[in-house]
């Protein structure tokens, strides 16, 4: 009786060993690190780079404690954050473009633990400091963009086949094409149905003969998903430019993106980079309305609306410029953008490099429009500025320069924005959290104290109240804490302050299982069972209750997990995992310990579970 087969002990021992291995990395602190990684796949992190940068650091009298090189990143470890900051300055200056130099904290746990996949818990922003943004993607603007694109495509399709229409335009999200002759409409119908499978076409007879085209709902859905993905990719690129180590950019819900930048000290700059939804648009200037060729060519339109098929924007000096509605190229054709200086007049410029399609379109457009003007426009949220609108001197292709930036910093920012790519749809920051690093450290300390304080209180009480069985319960509770921390570390669940509160609460609730068992054992002893039988019966009878009560708690936890977000989710994950580990540790581990203590003996006079005799005395 009360003896486990050997394999059960082995299972417990194995669980404990695994628990220790995965929990232990949390005990080692973190080392300040400067991380150099490549911003583009074409640039490799190799030995020569390492040797070069180490030399640069040496020249600046900085010696890193150690240097590590992985495929994607080069890490310099330092003794303290002061040296780390100095080293970063040097490395930013020396690494050159194409590299991201970021401050980071890396666990100082031994390498063999890291090799086993044992890493410390991933701390949420409220524990490590940093910035969190929640961005809402404007899906309407994504749809608008695709309507515009289908409009242009339909026009081209009809022109190619020389099908005559009397009007082509959009009405809301529909494209309406008008015809004078029925046979032209029939031809158009056939042509469009062939070439534009994404559109639903409908013929309308009325005063006018029309084709009304709408984008198929599944296509709209697909395009919105693509827009979201493109925005996420773009944000990743932009975040990389900020030099943040291990940033998180991920989809949340259908139309939201959450961005977490741990350890960012300057949320303003982060916001600026993320929030500026700038993209470049190149359009032809509406020369037909120009009065002369000077920079004030459109002065007469200052207070007048733009004529049909043109749009009016202001340039950097506030002069109106009329441009054609149709786009030559937009930002998604940009392969690279670098800031620089114009050799001739010394002004700040951005050197552009377009992709193949972009280059072809540019070549064709500049050939057809030599001696005419072309506008380079920066399209930001709700505001469009004409950066420059020079006269095209000669045909050019994929490489060209944009001038008109007031200074080098502006040129650098613009290059960064353009390089980071275009957003498929505009975005709003709808939630923002910034947590200072000192607050993060404080929160960790508070959380740690709360857990430890509660644990010690419970431990003291349990041992006083249940004696040896209380000690067993405390050991089981300790094992529970160990398992919980190990699983959280293993799964790399993001730990937040509410998460720590959940650890504390879960431990408080987990002791319930042990109390149930201990009370039951006491009761059985009182009712006259032998100690061995009482232990057996106590554990067995309590098990059903433990299961029932934990399943209901788990239901609540899962509901939190399903519907909660942010801090609630963090709370729920820990809560659910804690329930699972507590069942194991209360039922299996504590029984194992009790079996080790009492199981081997043939006969026990009394078990150490506190007072069990008062009832008999009362009866006597």
């Amino acid at each position, binding site marked *: 009786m009360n003896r486990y087969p050997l394999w059960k002990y082995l299972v417990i021992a194995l669980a404990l060993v695994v628990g220790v291995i995965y929990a232990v990395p949390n005990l080692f602190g973190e080392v300040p690190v400067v991380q150099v990684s490549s911003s583009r796949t074409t640039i490799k992190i190799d030995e020569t780079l390492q040797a070069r940068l180490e030399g640069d650091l040496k020249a600046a009298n900085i010696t890193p404690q150690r240097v590590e090189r992985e495929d994607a990143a080069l890490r310099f470890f330092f003794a303290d954050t002061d040296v780390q900051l100095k080293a970063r300055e040097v490395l930013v200056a020396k690494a050159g473009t194409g590299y991201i130099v970021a401050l980071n904290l890396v666990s100082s746990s031994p390498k063999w633990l890291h090799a086993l996949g044992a890493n410390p818990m991933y701390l949420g922003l409220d524990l490590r400091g940093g910035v969190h943004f929640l961005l*809402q993607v404007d899906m309407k603007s994504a749809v608008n963009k695709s309507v515009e694109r289908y409009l242009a495509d339909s026009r081209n399709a009809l022109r190619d086949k020389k099908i005559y229409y009397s009007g082509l335009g959009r009405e809301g999200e529909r494209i309406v094409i008008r015809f004078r002759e029925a046979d032209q409409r029939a031809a158009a119908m056939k042509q469009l149905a062939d070439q534009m499978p994404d559109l639903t076409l409908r013929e309308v007879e009325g005063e006018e003969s029309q084709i009304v085209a709408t984008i198929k709902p599944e296509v709209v859905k697909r395009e919105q998903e693509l827009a979201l993905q493109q925005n996420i990719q773009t944000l990743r690129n932009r975040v990389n430019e900020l030099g943040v180590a291990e940033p998180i950019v991920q989809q949340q819900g259908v139309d939201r993106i959450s961005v977490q930048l741990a350890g960012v000290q300057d*949320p*303003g700059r982060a916001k600026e980079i993320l929030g500026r939804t700038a993209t470049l648009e190149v359009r032809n200037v509406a020369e037909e309305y120009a009065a002369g060729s000077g920079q004030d060519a459109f002065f007469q339109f200052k207070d007048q609306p733009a004529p049909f098929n043109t749009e009016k924007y202001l340039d950097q000096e506030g002069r109106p410029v009329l441009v054609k509605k149709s786009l030559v190229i937009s930002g998604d054709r940009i392969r690279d953008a670098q800031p620089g200086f114009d050799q001739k007049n010394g002004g700040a410029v951005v050197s552009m490099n377009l992709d193949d399609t972009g280059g072809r379109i540019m070549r064709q457009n500049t050939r057809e429009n030599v001696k005419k003007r072309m506008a380079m426009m920066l399209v930001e949220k*709700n505001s469009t500025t004409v950066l420059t609108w020079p006269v095209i001197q000669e045909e050019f292709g994929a490489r060209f320069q944009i001038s008109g930036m007031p200074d080098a910093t502006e040129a650098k920012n613009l290059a960064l924005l353009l390089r980071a790519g275009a957003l498929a749809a505009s975005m*709003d*920051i*709808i*939630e*923002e*959290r*910034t*947590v*200072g690093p000192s*607050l993060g450290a*404080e*929160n960790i300390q*508070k*959380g740690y*104290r*709360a857990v430890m*304080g*509660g644990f010690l*209180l*419970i431990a003291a*009480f*349990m041992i006083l109240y249940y004696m040896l069985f209380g000690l067993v319960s405390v050991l089981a509770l300790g094992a529970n804490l160990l398992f919980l921390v190990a699983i959280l570390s293993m799964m790399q669940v993001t730990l937040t302050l*509410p998460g720590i*509160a*959940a650890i504390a*609460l879960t*431990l*408080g609730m987990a002791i*319930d299982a042990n*109390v*149930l068992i201990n*009370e039951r054992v006491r*009761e059985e002893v009182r009712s006259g069972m032998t100690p061995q039988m009482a232990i057996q019966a106590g554990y067995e009878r309590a098990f059903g*209750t433990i299961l*029932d*009560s934990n399943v*209901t*708690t*788990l*239901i*609540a*936890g899962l*509901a*939190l997990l*399903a*519907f*909660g977000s*942010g*801090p*609630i989710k963090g*709370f729920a994950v820990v*809560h659910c995992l804690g329930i699972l580990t507590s069942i194991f540790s209360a039922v299996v581990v504590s029984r194992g310990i009790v079996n080790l203590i009492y199981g081997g003996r043939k006969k026990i006079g009394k078990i150490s579970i506190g*007072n069990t005799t*008062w*009832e008999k005395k*009362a009866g006597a």
Partner: protein
Amino acid sequence: MEFFKIRGTIPFMRHALVFNVISLITFVLAVGFLIAKGLHFSIEFTGGTVMEVNYAKEASPDRIREAIQKTGLTDFTVQTFGTPRDVLIRLQLKQAEGQSQNVEMQKQSDTVMKALKAEDPSAQLKRVEFVGGQVGKELAADGGLALLFVCIGIVIYLAFRFEWRFAVATILANLHDVVIILGFFAAFGWEFSLPVLAAVLAILGYSVNESVVVFDRVRENFKKLRKASVPEVMDASITGTISRTIITHGCTQMMVLSILIFGGATLHYFALALTIGICFGIYSSVLVACPLAMYLGASREDFVKPEKKAATAEMP
């Protein structure tokens, strides 16, 4: 050591009516406060901006208020947070919708910080949170949904494991707890934040836990004490589990107390909600759930019947 030297069975059920009247009064009071004063929702639900500012020495909320007023803002609150050197500033959400709203909020927090720095250079921004109105609405909806889901899930599980009467009694007893917690938050104007919501939902699971333990014993006693009446079985079951109930709650409360003491201002109301939940959890799971199950007509037959039928069927 021994706390509960319970020699006989305590006749809980005899006083059931008294307890029920008490809990009805508390419940009605809580509902009254909820209707009259409403919950003071945090910006996570309402949308708005929260700034936590740290000063080198003791901060003066009055001077901070003046400084902010100078910037032209009117709708804001200033209070100390945790320590006298930390101040929490809440800015109300502007009425504007969508993009302009977000720009507006960012400008606001920047202006406020500038004004505070001008007033006292030691002012340091520790934390800024900005939540748009839409997000808040969704959070509130999700919270309600979670509450509903927890209730349904628990009722189904309990109906399956026990009997529908026990399921209904349990969920009513627990909703009673939840309403009373909310009532406290309404009555004292405490801030209802996301962690508090998490606490309320955790209490829901926790308190059910409590009822389940008692009902487990009721089921066992129905089988064991064949001659006892229903109230007697209930009394015996509650008496049998009362020491465990109090010890468990006591242990959980020790943890919660530790959170309350060491957890800081962020977890203050979280711990407070749990404390109220634990106190009322003991009471409701025992003194509300059991009588309710009894009034609903819970009887021995619910658990013992199947065996009896099998026995009679075998008899010729």
